[in-house]
């Protein structure tokens, strides 16, 4: 039997020209979440509690695409989804289409432990959230200015973007590459598109 191990992620598909300061912000958040998980593991918390604890932290911080800071639908709203699974008995819980739940991963865990089901979505998930008394917020709590700008870019390009974090329009010095190579497609920096 080995010791404990932990890994976290904040999304794949990163714009190669992401400004350095945003790269540092991301690394700081990842390190903070790792340390949160490590101290929980050293206090003998079970794995299921640790993954929930760490993902809640990631949902609450607006930097990555989840919880506050979630990507926006074509209507400019937020529809979040999450799941959690524990390996020993392979129990799991999942939610989709939640719009007011501050920590969707905790609602997913309640589905696993407090309901006869494994997956609740949209209105059913929202009703269950109210029954369970989880923390709620208006939909605009989850919407950040960065993502409103990203949505506008995506609409201009008539594109669907996954976890790209493209720099805000005011390019700063560390985006020199972009300025030197302003190759655009549909008015967007070419780096926004998934490599073909």
């Amino acid at each position, binding site marked *: 039997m080995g010791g404990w191990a*932990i890994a976290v992620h904040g999304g794949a598909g990163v714009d190669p020209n992401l400004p350095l300061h945003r790269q540092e912000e991301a690394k700081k958040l990842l390190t903070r979440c790792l340390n949160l*998980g490590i101290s929980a593991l050293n206090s003998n918390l079970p794995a299921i509690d640790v993954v929930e604890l760490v993902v809640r932290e990631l949902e609450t911080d607006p930097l990555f695409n989840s*919880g506050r800071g979630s990507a926006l639908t074509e209507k400019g709203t937020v529809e979040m989804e999450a799941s959690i699974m524990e390996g020993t008995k392979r129990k799991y819980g999942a939610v989709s289409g939640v719009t007011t739940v501050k920590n969707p991963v905790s609602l997913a865990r309640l589905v696993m432990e407090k309901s006869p089901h494994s997956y609740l979505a949209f209105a059913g998930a929202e009703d269950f959230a109210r029954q369970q008394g989880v923390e709620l917020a208006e939909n605009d709590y989850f919407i950040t200015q960065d993502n409103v700008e990203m949505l506008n870019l995506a609409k201009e390009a008539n594109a669907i973007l996954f976890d790209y974090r493209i720099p805000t329009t005011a390019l700063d010095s560390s985006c020199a590459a972009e300025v030197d190579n302003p190759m655009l497609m549909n008015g967007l920096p070419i780096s926004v598109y998934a490599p073909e």
Partner: protein
Amino acid sequence: TVGCVVVDKEGRCAAATSTGGLMNKRSGRIGDSPIIGAGTYACNLCGVSCTGEGEAILRATLAREVAAVMEYKGLRLQEAVDFVIKDRLDEGKAGLIAVSTNGEVAYGFNASGMFRGCATEDGFMEVGIWE
């Protein structure tokens, strides 16, 4: 999309994934993150959390695939991760993190970069974005 995978001192694995989905997605669209076996999976061998193009991850049942090749092909964790990223995604772009019940940690991605961090009890710790 964000995720966390953990194996504790008792060898129990767990995985969790949470997301807002795709920017400019249609209302009602469901991705891989809440679908067990696609974006999230945990069993008595490993715990896996995926991110990237949800539709590709769904078609590949990517998270379960890692456990399956460990179970049926006897691959170690990093071999299993490398195999599914290389051979199961077709043209899709994705990344994943994984832990195994014997305390290993692994990740892999074919997209341009993945925000990730990992640590083990023997003191190893790494935070990165690029290859």
